[in-house]
């Protein structure tokens, strides 16, 4: 995610990665039973609502973790780098969502549920990490 050697990670980065891993674990544990219940049992309205919120929470937690990282990070350069990455990821994700949304609306492409949008955003952050690791020669910008 931060594209550095293990030893190069700042404390704030370590904390963020730790939080993210726990949240992803929670997500992987919570989601399958909910999906199964929805598919195989009749679930009432209120319970469905609670389930949808429960499924969302780990992802919302990951976004909150990014916010926490930005305020925790004492190294201003890493802070600035991360801000840039978030801006690029957000712009790209929003752009893709807008394009796809119109293609959908005009019946040119199939529908998809909107939680894919944050999924793309998270994947982009990971992609940044991979790109920077692969181009190790540069100073990790």
């Amino acid at each position, binding site marked *: 995610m931060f594209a550095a050697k293990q030893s190069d990670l700042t404390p704030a980065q370590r904390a963020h990665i730790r939080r993210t891993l726990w949240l992803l674990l929670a997500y992987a544990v919570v989601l399958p039973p909910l999906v199964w219940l*929805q598919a195989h049992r009749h*679930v009432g309205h209120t319970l469905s609502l609670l389930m949808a919120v429960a499924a969302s929470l780990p992802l919302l937690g990951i976004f909150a973790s990014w916010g926490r990282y930005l305020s925790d990070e004492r190294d201003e350069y890493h802070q600035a780098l991360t801000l840039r990455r978030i801006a690029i990821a957000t712009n790209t994700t929003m752009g893709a969502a807008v394009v796809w949304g119109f293609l959908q609306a005009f019946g040119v492409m199939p529908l998809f549920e909107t939680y894919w949008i944050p999924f793309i955003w998270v994947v982009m952050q990971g992609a940044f990490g991979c790109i920077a690791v692969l181009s190790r020669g540069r100073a990790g910008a």
Partner: protein
Amino acid sequence: MSMNPAMNRYNWRVIWLSLVYAAFLLTAVYCFKHQLLHGVIAYVAAILPALPIIGIFGAMGRYLLEEEDEYVRMLMVRQSLWASGFALSVATIWGFLESFNLVEHVDAYSVAIVWFVGLGVGSLMNKLTLGASVKC
């Protein structure tokens, strides 16, 4: 209060882009309603309204680069972060509500609207935490 040049430029760009958006959208809606388009042209016509919206995000990015007052820029960066977090969170929740059949499908381009609403959220958070915010 006089607005600074970077903010002025941003506002002008948004106005122009909104007009282009309206033009592209109305054209596309008309064409699709009357089934005038097929094949590649259909794709192009469907994508055209998206481009000015992407342009508005780009204008926001340009503004953040052009703003010379670092304090105002800092406020705006924070508001943008809140906007992004807000939009991503709403998209997440709505997506799950939708897949659990609790709400109806909303086209994905609405996330852009939510992002701009999120700027208002950010402005509020700035007022609460820093005592100042940027109106845009």
